[in-house]
Each structure stands twice: as C-alpha cells, then as structure tokens.
C-alpha cells in the first residue's frame, strides 16, 4: 500500500523530469530531424494557447474568441524587450524575463477587457473578445515604431525545445494548481451556474478577472515564444484565423480538460503539418473541423473529464480514500 502511494506520488514528477532530459538532449545531440523538432515546438506553443483558452471557455464556460489578440500583445512586448532593451549578449539569459514581460502585457490588456465585460456572457463576451482581437491587430498595424503593417524583426532565435518544454510544464502546473484549489473551484462554479455560485459565496467578479488574466498571461508568453521561434512577426499572424485555430484545438481536445488541451493541440498541429501538400486548402480545415465538432461531439475528445496523472497528487489521494470508503459500504466503485 505504501509502495503504491509512493509511485502514485512520484510518477508524474519523474516523467516530467525525464521529459526535460529528452527536451535538452534532442537539440544537443541532434536526435531528430530539425523539422520534427520545429513541429514539437509548435505543439508546445499550441498546448500553452489551448490550455489557457480552455480555462476561460472550458473550465469557466465562457466563450472568448480572440485569444490571438493576447498572443499578439505578448509576442510584440517580448520582442521589443529582447530587440530594443535587452543587450544582445544577455538575450539568452534574460529571455524568460522578456517572456514574462510579454505575458504581463497581455495580462494587463485582459484586465482592461475583463472589467467592462463583467456583466457580459455568452454572445456578448464573444463579441467583446472578437473586437479586442481586431483592435489589437489594428493598433499594431498603426504603430510605426514596431514596424506597423510590415511586421517586426530582429529577434534572435531564443526559443529552443527545452525552453518550450519548461514553459509548457509551467503553464500546465500553474493552471492545474489553480483549478484544483479554492480560487479555481470558483471557476467551475461559474460554468455550472453563475447566480448560484455568487449565492454560495463565490466572488464571481474576482474569479472572472483572475481567470481572464491568467489565461491571457500564458497566451502572451506563448506569443513571445512564437515570436522568438519565427524571428519575424506580423500583425496578420495574430488575426481571427489564428484565434479560430486555438478554438478548434480547445473544442477538439475537450472542454474543461487539461489532457484534452494537450491532445487537441497535438492532433491539430500534426494534422496541419501533415496536410501541407494541400496548400491553402488546408486552411479550410480549421473552420470545417469546428463546425463538425459542434455538431457531432460538442464536448470534444475528453469533454469535462481529466486524466488522473494531471490531478494533483494530494487531491488524487483524497478522492482515492473516499472511493475506497465507499467501496467498503456500497460495493465496488467504478473507474
């Protein structure tokens, strides 16, 4: 029994550590084709975007559609920081700070949107976030100092597989810990019934603002990673098409599920790469997939379920004990 709980406690941390070793070794010893390495990094960035949007759309049950707007803010802020502010030699060392700067910028924008949208839900929030996406894009297009419509370049290729890996883990870890804690349970309550949530003491405004900011922060960091991978960013990288792709990844993988986000982002990214031969036609894929999903399986692959490994060990232990207790009195428990 003791042994079983030990493996249950340490299996995930060890797997994460092994993954880090692999993420470090792949570029170091050129274990795989650089193209595959690039795809892996895209997957990582997309996981961050999907997990963060899923927090708002899946766990909280809102419908935000302009996630690329936050990504854009993060990408530009981080890029301006590394190109204009941070000395070239210091770039690799201070890269995490630049990314945090990008995330913070996106978080501030999210705060500005969250406050007036307190009372908006469903369709209205969709419109507000759609407008935000467009506003961010046109603001960038009109700032000459950061290249305006011509885009912004000069970033060093600071995004590497180990960095992407570390940030994916940080994102999953932070959002997981948030969801499985008191402040995060409020998020789930809002999805289920916002009025009832408020009436059992959940400060719904506070919860919403926090979830929006957290979501935008990691979208911003993902944007920063994206910018320092491509080394050239353009307002069109962050248009409504990009936002739609993130939505597809969320609804493909499954709403309200971390594992769903990982699956959705991975499957979609690989699919998009595999269908390169189709040229521009592959861009039809995202909207088409979204329509089909909404009709056939609106909750996605995982749909509100979670893989055990992504539940915090202490919570897993608690639920396990309750299940065992129940098994003792009322027969075998499922799962």
């Amino acid at each position, binding site marked *: 029994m003791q042994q079983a709980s030990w493996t249950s406690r340490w299996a995930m941390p060890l797997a994460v550590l092994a993954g880090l070793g692999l993420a470090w070794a792949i570029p170091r010893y050129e274990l795989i084709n650089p193209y595959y390495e690039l795809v892996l990094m895209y997957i990582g960035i997309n996981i961050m975007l999907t997990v963060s949007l899923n927090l708002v759309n899946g766990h909280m049950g809102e419908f935000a559609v302009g996630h690329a707007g936050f990504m854009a803010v993060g990408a530009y802020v981080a890029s301006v920081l590394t190109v204009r502010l941070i000395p070239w030699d210091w770039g690799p060392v201070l890269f995490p700070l630049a990314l945090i700067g990008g995330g913070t910028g996106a978080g501030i924008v999210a705060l500005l949107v969250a406050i007036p949208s307190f009372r908006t839900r469903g369709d209205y929030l969709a419109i507000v976030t759609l407008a935000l996406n467009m506003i961010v894009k046109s603001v960038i297009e009109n700032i000459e100092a950061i290249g305006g419509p011509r885009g912004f370049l000069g970033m060093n290729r600071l995004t590497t597989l180990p960095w992407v890996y570390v940030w994916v883990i940080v994102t999953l870890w932070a959002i997981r*810990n948030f969801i499985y*804690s*008191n402040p995060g349970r409020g998020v789930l309550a809002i999805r*289920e019934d916002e009025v009832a949530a*408020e009436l*059992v*003491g959940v400060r*719904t405004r506070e919860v919403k603002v926090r979830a929006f900011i957290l979501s935008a922060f990691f979208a911003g960091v993902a944007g920063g990673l994206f910018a320092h991978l491509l080394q050239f960013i353009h307002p069109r990288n962050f248009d409504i098409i990009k936002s739609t792709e993130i939505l597809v990844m969320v609804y493909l993988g499954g709403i309200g599920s971390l594992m769903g986000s990982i699956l959705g982002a991975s499957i979609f990214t690989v699919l998009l790469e595999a269908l390169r031969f189709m040229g521009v036609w592959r861009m039809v894929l995202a909207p088409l997939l979204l329509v089909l999903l909404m009709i056939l399986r609106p909750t996605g692959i995982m749909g509100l379920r979670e893989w055990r490994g992504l539940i915090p060990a*202490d919570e897993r232990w608690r639920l396990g004990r309750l*299940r065992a207790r129940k098994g003792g009195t009322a027969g075998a428990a499922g799962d």
Partner: protein
Amino acid sequence: MLLEIRDLNLRFGGLHAVRNVNLQVPEGGLVGLIGPNGAGKTTVFNLITGVYQPDSGDIRFRGRSLVGLLPSQIVARGVARTFQTIRLFRDLTVLDNVRIAHYQRARYGLWPAFLRTARVLDREQQITERSMRLLEVFDLADLALEPARSLPYGAQRKLEMARALATTPRLLLLDEPAAGMNPAEVGQLAELIQNIRDRFGVTVLLIEHQMKMVMSICERITVLDFGQVIAEGTPEDVRNNPRVLEAYLGRRGVAMA
C-alpha cells in the same frame, strides 16, 4: 431581531411585486413565509440575498443593512439559501458542490494556490473533511463522488441544504424545500429542518406550500398576497384569519367553507 425588513418595495415595470413588506425574523426562530403562487415570496428571498435591489425600504441583518451589497457579500455576512428550482452545480461531484461553498472560508490566497503550499494542502484536507461531515448529516456521504445531476430529486434538495450550510450561515432561507416530495418525504424533511436548526444553531426562514408542514414546524408565519403582507402571527392566528382564507380559497370558497 436577526432579520428585519422595513417597508420593502420592488416594481418590475408595471407590476408592483413587493409592496411595503415588513418582516421580522427573531434569532433562533423558525419562521414561515407563505402565500398563493405569484405572491412575491421568492422575490422577497431574492431581495434579501441581493439578487434584486429594492426600489425602497431596508433589509437589516444583525443590525446592518444588506441593501446594495453583492450576493457573495451577503453570504459572508451569514445569509444562505436554497432555490425553488434546484440550482446545483450539476456536472460537478456532490463533494465539489459543498467544497465550492467554502470559497470565503478557505483562508489561503491565489499565490499559495499556484505553489500548492503545505498550507493549501492542509486547508484542502480540512475543507474536504468538513464537507464530508456535512454530507453525512444529510445521508449523502456515500454519493460524494457522483455528479450532482445523477442524484434523485429528494437528494438534490438535501444537497442544496448541505451546500447552503457549508457557508456557515446565521440565517438559512429555504425556498419550497418540500416541492415535489411525497407525504412521507415531507414528514422526514420537517424533522430534518428542525434538526438543522438545533444542530447548526441557524435561524430558518421557510417558503412552503405544504401547509401541514408549515403549520406544524413554524413558530411564526407571515402571509403574502399580491406582494403585500396580509397576515402575520402564530400558525393558529394565521389559520383562522379570514383574509388568509380568502387569499387561498377566494371569496366564494370561504363562503362555502
């Protein structure tokens, strides 16, 4: 008085839903709020809990006004409620329904939550244990890990009460807890409500259509009709009040009875 409502008014457009309502609930009491359908009983609950804001009048709880506060702030002051139409967090487990109601009592912030510090683990364990104890009171502990939507109707009503009590209220507002229950269940419920009051030391304000239950467990009853208080007093007073009979049976009904 624990709760004191003075000259409360609320209009929905042309409808004067609550008209000069006065209501007093003494500390430790079990007070009934009755009246025909559409009399404004639930509206009064919505005004007390901050779902609606009154046009005029005051609602004082433990001497302080609740008017203008957010529902979550009113919960923090010690008022909890259940709903006429059940409003559980349907897709979440029975346990999480109760744990969520600890939102204001968790005593740890956002940053410890991210880092999942020892304090967070400790508090989460305590919240879970306390939730389980509450579920035991309502015979729901064995269903803790089931989604709330899978519970039978009566159990869902009980879960709503457990969730409300998890906020440690001084005043519990029950909105038609016996709705949809059979006579045997109603009998058990009456007992349960009295037990809750004694065990948790809460004051209860009860909306109910089951006259027998209201008459048997409430110490005082206020009767609403068309948004107005038409009678107030002990069950005995109310039962014999001609205006109450008229409201329920109509003028001709009274003549026939």
